[in-house]
């Protein structure tokens, strides 16, 4: 017959530390009810083992000796194929999106910059070439191609920047250049209309 185990506060603190460590190992990997159940079973086992020592009030050394006989907390880490889906999904939602990630933010910044280059350099270059070659068609065609290209890349840059808004500076660059690109594309389109008229 086992004696009831009276545990002092410092001994209880050692037990609690072990139980907390196991709890942390299981947190987010095992459903809450199961996690609490596992920790409760380990606590019962510790108390049973202490009671087997038949000492009314176990010492710190008794507890440490019992803990040394148990599996280490890392042994409770579930293997990947046993892990439940729900906590994993929750964690995944905090991580960068698999489809974009930092690559998406980088692409957004690059496309935004291309959009600006097209409308600020490409369109005037088309106009200058048209003037030099005295070709109105070349002038209009160059401006239209640059305006449409700039608008398309600016819109893609904006979408990517919004999708990857958590990725800091690159996403902000894509957002700002995308907005400016869209606005300037409209200016370019209006310029084309004036040229046509």
């Amino acid at each position, binding site marked *: *017959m*086992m*004696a*009831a*185990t009276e*545990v002092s506060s410092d001994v209880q603190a050692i037990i609690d530390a072990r139980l907390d460590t196991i709890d942390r190992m299981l947190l987010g990997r*095992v*459903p809450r*009810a*199961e996690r609490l*159940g*596992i920790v*409760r*079973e*380990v*606590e*019962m*086992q510790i*108390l*049973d083992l*202490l*009671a087997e020592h038949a000492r009314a009030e176990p010492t710190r050394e008794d507890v440490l000796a019992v803990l040394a006989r*148990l*599996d280490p907390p890392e*042994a*409770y880490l*579930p293997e990947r194929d046993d892990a439940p889906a729900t906590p994993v999904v929750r964690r995944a939602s905090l991580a960068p999106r698999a489809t974009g990630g930092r690559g998406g933010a980088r692409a957004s910044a690059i496309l935004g910059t291309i959009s600006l280059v097209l409308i600020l350099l490409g369109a005037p270059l088309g106009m200058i070439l048209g003037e030099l070659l005295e070709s109105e068609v070349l002038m209009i065609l160059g401006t239209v191609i640059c305006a449409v290209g700039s608008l398309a890349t600016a819109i893609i840059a904006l979408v990517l920047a919004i999708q990857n808004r958590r990725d800091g500076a690159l996403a902000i660059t894509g957002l700002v250049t995308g907005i400016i690109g869209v606005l300037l594309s409209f200016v370019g389109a209006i310029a084309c209309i004036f040229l046509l008229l």
Partner: protein
Amino acid sequence: MGRWETQLRKGVVELAVLASIARGETYGYKIVEELRALRGLEFTESTIYPVLTRLAGEGLLAIRAEGSPSGPTRRYYRLTDEGTRRLRGMAAEWTHVAGSLEGLLEGGPR
């Protein structure tokens, strides 16, 4: 222990836990002690307790809480009807697999 032995033991732990509980209402540490005494089924608590709580969560085990001599409330497990059905199914499957393997290992004619 080799990888094959580890995989084999991993596959039978649930069956072993259910079979242990089928012998009568029992608690976690007692299951660990009981299985530890059986050759090939020396599972430790970090293997048994997660399986135990999962099976209870799946409704295969019923829990009765009762104060223990060593301190806090102890949880006693017994098989539910669903747990008994699961155990029977697993035991039948195990018997088939073990029988087939035995036949192969005895090296009888094709």
